[in-house]
């Protein structure tokens, strides 16, 4: 019996170790390859140069255009997902009856289950032509369409986590608000949203993190042209789209061009790592709030 227990325990430990080792392995590859890259390209140039042309004759290695592309599509996505997600969360948690909530929520979560490649083509073949009808100067590949569609994709993430946060607000606060003569809307916006703010912030941070890492939609719909711009009508290239471009291209392994994707990948990793950690700490604080 004792040995059996020990074997089971070892098995459990091994399973969890695999995930940790995988993360460490990825980190090691990113760091070691990036280190070689930064041996040839100064980190100053990487972070400050305004051009990203490693695949051209005249090579520049400035990550800023890619970062701008990522920031731009993410910004558009959050501009869609934040207001809609929170509105939906308030509706579901404070207005909807149980049957409506129980039907609506799974339907909403289908949005998150649609394969991203489908979203990508939807953005390119439906949203972009539609928007071109309104904005004729819109580029065929543009940050706007990709961002809008990505925003729709992450709505369930914002709404679902925000709804959890709103529902976690103790009923005593709802009673207090209603007892003071608040309308439902006043109760929601003046009492519940502030009381659930840390949970809502977490949902948005995780959604941003998701949008930064999103690859397929932006690769298909936003284009592959590094562009230091904040105009969503233009063609851009995100960090993720660049990594796809090089991974699928004919760049020889081991070359400096090839190593750029590890530096870009490290950048991506650092960004999402920071965001996830901030949300972790915010979440910890909010869990304590009502205990």
């Amino acid at each position, binding site marked *: 019996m004792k040995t059996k227990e020990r074997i089971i325990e070892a098995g459990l430990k091994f399973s969890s170790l695999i995930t940790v080792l995988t993360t460490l392995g990825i980190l090691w590859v990113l760091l070691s390859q990036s280190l070689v890259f930064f041996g040839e390209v100064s980190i100053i140039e990487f972070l400050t140069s305004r051009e990203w042309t490693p695949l051209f004759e005249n090579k520049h290695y400035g990550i800023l255009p890619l970062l701008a592309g990522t920031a731009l599509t993410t910004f558009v996505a959050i501009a869609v997902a934040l207001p809609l997600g929170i509105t939906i969360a308030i509706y579901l948690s404070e207005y909807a009856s149980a049957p409506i909530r129980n039907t609506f929520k799974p339907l909403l979560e289908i949005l998150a289950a649609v394969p991203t490649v489908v979203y990508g083509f939807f953005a390119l073949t439906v949203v972009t032509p539609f928007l071109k009808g309104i904005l004729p100067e819109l580029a065929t590949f543009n940050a706007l369409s990709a961002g809008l569609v990505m925003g729709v994709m992450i709505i369930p993430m914002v709404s679902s986590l925000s709804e959890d946060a709103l529902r976690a607000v103790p009923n005593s606060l709802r009673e207090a608000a209603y*007892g003071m*003569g608040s*309308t439902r809307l006043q109760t929601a916006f003046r009492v519940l949203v*502030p*009381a659930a703010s840390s949970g809502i912030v977490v949902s948005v941070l995780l959604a941003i993190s998701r949008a930064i890492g999103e690859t397929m939609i932006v690769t298909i719909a936003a284009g592959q042209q590094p562009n230091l711009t904040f105009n969503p009508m233009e063609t851009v290239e995100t960090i993720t789209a660049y990594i796809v471009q090089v991974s699928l291209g004919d760049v020889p392994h081991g070359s400096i061009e090839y190593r750029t994707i590890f530096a870009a990948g490290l950048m991506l990793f650092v960004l999402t790592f920071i965001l996830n950690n901030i949300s972790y700490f915010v979440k910890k604080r909010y869990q304590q709030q009502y205990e």
Partner: protein
Amino acid sequence: MEEIIEIEKTVTSEKHRAEQPADAKHTENPVRPKLETRGVNVFYGDNQVITDVSITMKEKSVTALIGPSGCGKSTFLRLFNRMNDYIKVFRKEGDICIDGKDIYSPSVHVEDLRKMVGMVFQKPNPFPKTIYENVAYGLRIQGVNDKNILDEAVEQSLKSAALWNEVRSNLKKSALALSGGQQQRLCIARALAVNPSILLMDEPASALDPIATAKIEELIHRLKEDYTIVIVTHNMQQAGRVSDMTAFFYLGKLIEYTETKKLFTSPENEMTENYITGRFG
């Protein structure tokens, strides 16, 4: 029907019902009831939780509602600011009037009603905002944003709730940093800030220590001068100390309603006597 007849033998409120028309003739009569219910039944689905309760309460008096858990006293209290409305299966029959006006009539906006009828809950429930914003909340939702008016109302309300001296230099601090007793007085101040005429208190001291409880009771004594107070309490000594009238509820029925002194010294009903002497409940 049988139940109701049985109750009528014991319920003193029957007398009040008979007195009512006499009062109604003199509209300026100073003893006209502030709060009044007539033949109120409350149902949660098929379950009747209040049975034929008729009661009148005078202006600027304190009425205690006592009775064992589940006797319907909290449900009854919440009829006066319509806090039961949110319960889907809630249904009531009979009239509930404030100043002679039916508060369940379609012309009454529940938000306006609640500005007139403040409520203090069992567990202190300040908003996770500053002390100042807690008290200012009621005025802010009415659209008052003038700093002078708010400052004045916050100070007055905190003074009325006997909290001003303890928090005057910390108005920008989070209300959640206050002690339980202070939080409860803050909740009272928050209710007072919109100038209600009635205060409903649902076991306001049950979560507090004896010293904080004593402060709340003292406060109720002073608030009586300006407000009509209805308080639900589990604590019979408390009912004895703070109230003018006491109503004893049992299984959703009003068993006895009379002056507090009389109810605790010479109750007419045997059930009341058994309850106040601790034989059940």
